[in-house]
């Protein structure tokens, strides 16, 4: 099989690229203090929330868009976007019956894992069926959260899982305490923009010593044209608690690139553990990247003593990805992990990685990054490991592997290491390999089709990361890797 044939199999169409015809309500295009006020008013926010938004907005005006990432895209006209779009469904739905059936249809078409679609459709698993994992889902459609399931059951465990807007009203003390505590309002251009105009997102609070009884999941879907999606997620795991959170993202196929700038803040209090998994499948654009999502995301978590945060991500979508889920290992004996599979095909560009900031004693971090480039895809792993003075006995292990398919793609590794503590131990391993014609021929000689052979090889390459995903998500991710690479071989 030749390189060009490999690329044919990679030329597969985006399967989530449909538009749902739902009546939308928009804010006028452009960004100003009035728009910020408009959004806040739409959400009937308290004064402190509006003040915080305005603080972000005013700061943002003085900021410059960062250009240090190894991605190139035409200048974004921030005045040519809608900062608010919502399906017209009146007030917040009280039950599934009030949710527009077209929305539910959308989630169905997205191929959201069956059990989650069931939940969205209100199907309850039979009681006493402990083997079947249950997932509570929050669905965010353009700017608003449309449905959160399993609320009552979670409530009995003391778990709060609701839309961000709802949390602002019902749990203002938690929001005021933790909002901006990990990603400060002045952090970076995109995060600050998000702080000004964020529309919705999810909020999670796990009380002390509680192991969240089910996986929590959010689906983000951009539907409206020329709309930025700015969601904000805040997860607080109180002392000794545990939560596993899943995030899935899709968008319809459009001719114009759309902006997505999310912020995720994780707070793991002493002894708590947060496992945050993402399967990102935003529309990657056509073969030249037209219409794909620009994905500029700030994700960061802070770990207090003995706390652990584990980021797992499978990134197959977006035209441009700029994303560095990070851990601030503030408490002694805290642990940070980052497992990533990023796939770039056609004209996709990804500059992604992580930052592990070791402040506490005996803090440990693990980074496993697997990059797959095909077509003209360009990918950069950008990872920072910082060991501050006093982080006695801190340890980091970094492993970066790149897999190239064809000969027009690129993989780049940019590790930054800063060590101020002589007792720290760091290891870095990196490999680059190519899906060989010989591997494909070997698989095909055993009877596998070209697609299956590529899927098998790629999934084998990504296995170390995929096995970190919750079971039901791992299956989706495996399929997604296969689908995203169809057309790479022929």
């Amino acid at each position, binding site marked *: 099989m030749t390189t060009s044939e490999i690329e044919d199999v990679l030329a597969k169409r985006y399967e989530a690229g449909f538009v749902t015809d739902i009546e939308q309500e928009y804010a006028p295009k452009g960004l100003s203090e009035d728009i910020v006020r408009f959004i806040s008013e739409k959400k009937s926010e308290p004064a402190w929330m509006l003040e915080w938004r305005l603080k972000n907005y005013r700061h943002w005006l003085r900021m410059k868009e960062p250009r240090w990432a190894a991605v190139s895209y035409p200048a974004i006209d921030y005045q040519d976007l809608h900062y608010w779009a919502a399906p017209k469904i009146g007030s917040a739905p009280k039950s599934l019956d009030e949710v527009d059936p077209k929305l539910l249809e959308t989630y169905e078409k997205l191929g959201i894992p069956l059990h989650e679609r069931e939940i969205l459709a209100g199907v309850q698993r039979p009681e006493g069926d402990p083997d079947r994992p249950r997932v509570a889902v929050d669905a965010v459609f353009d700017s608003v959260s449309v449905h959160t399931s399993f609320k009552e059951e979670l409530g009995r465990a003391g778990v709060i899982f609701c839309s961000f807007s709802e949390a602002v009203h019902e749990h203002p003390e938690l929001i005021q305490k933790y909002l901006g505590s990990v990603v400060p309002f002045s952090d970076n251009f995109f995060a600050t923009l998000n702080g000004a105009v964020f529309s919705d997102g999810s909020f999670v609070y796990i009380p002390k010593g509680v192991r969240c009884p089910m996986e929590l999941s959010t689906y983000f879907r951009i539907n409206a044209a020329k709309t930025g999606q700015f969601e904000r997620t805040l997860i607080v795991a109180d002392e000794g608690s545990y939560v596993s959170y899943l995030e899935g993202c899709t968008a319809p196929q459009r001719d114009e690139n759309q902006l997505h700038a999310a912020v995720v803040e994780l707070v793991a209090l002493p002894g708590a553990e947060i496992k945050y998994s993402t399967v990102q499948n935003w529309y990657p654009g056509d073969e030249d990247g037209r219409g794909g999502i620009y994905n500029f995301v700030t994700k960061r978590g802070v770990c207090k003593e003995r706390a652990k945060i584990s980021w797992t991500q499978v990134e197959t979508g977006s035209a441009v990805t700029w994303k560095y889920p990070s851990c601030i290992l503030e408490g002694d004996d805290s642990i940070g992990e980052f497992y990533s599979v990023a796939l770039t095909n056609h004209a996709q560009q990804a500059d992604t990685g992580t930052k592990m900031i070791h402040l506490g004693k005996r803090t440990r971090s693990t980074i496993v990054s697997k990059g797959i480039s095909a077509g003209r895809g360009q990918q950069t792993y950008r990872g920072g490991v910082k060991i501050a003075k006093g982080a006695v006995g801190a340890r980091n292990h970094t492993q970066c592997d790149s897999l190239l398919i064809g000969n027009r793609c690129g993989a780049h590794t940019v590790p930054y290491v800063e060590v101020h503590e002589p007792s720290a131990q760091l290891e870095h391993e990196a490999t680059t390999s190519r899906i*060989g014609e010989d591997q494909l*021929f*070997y698989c095909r*000689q055993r*009877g596998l089709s070209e697609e299956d052979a590529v899927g*098998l*090889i790629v999934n*084998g*390459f*990504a296995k170390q990361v995929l096995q970190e995903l919750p079971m039901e998500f791992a299956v989706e991710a495996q399929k997604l890797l296969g689908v995203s690479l169809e057309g790479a071989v022929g």
Partner: protein
Amino acid sequence: MLSIQNLHVEVGGKPILKGLTLELKAGEVHAIMGPNGAGKSTLSYVLAGRDGYEVKAGSITFLGQDLLAMDVSERAAAGLFLGFQYPVAIPGVSNLHFVRAALNAQRKARGEAELSAAELMKLAREKGKLVELPADLMKRAVNDGFSGGEKKRNEIFQMAMLEPKLAVLDETDSGLDIDALRVVASGVNALRSPERAMLVITHYQRLLDHIVPDRVHVLVDGRIVESGDKSLALRLEDEGYEKIRATAAVSGAAS
């Protein structure tokens, strides 16, 4: 079972096979011997359908079908197995998962039911014994970090699992010490059957002490220049390829 007629093959514009003719019947084991560069591996790749091996003339019929019209995985599903000289590693894919994916892909292509995980495990345990395949080798990634001997045993294990009609074994003896050679050869012998044909490609006679062929063909410069019974292999071992090459050159010039 296999009929190759006047096969001419080029690789990168260079003629490698220059009129090769060979008949192989079910139940037979034929050996192809020849010096380096004679076209032995080219023959195995052409049979399997690898890209870059351009058939300029001639025909190959396999079980009554035009083999050259089939793609690589179709040939596999039709029952053609190639034991690789250099088996390829596939990191992260367990050996057992791989062989299951392969077997089920072939069964599906033939319209047969796929094997369940339990059925597969049972079959794998049984077939693994043929080549004394250690249990941990089934769980490890395909050929990843395998020794030379482990790789070749694994090839024969896969062959046992896939139960092909025709097995082409390309330099199965290369990289094997004498004990590994014995294990691999006994695995191959156990798979000899009246319904199965084998084409054993080798550089050295020693493999044929263990896998005794029905016919031996000598491939020199892209053509079979001499065929005979197993004694031909012994004669070659004594005389070397030089003498035959000289004869072939003369006959080639004459023709």
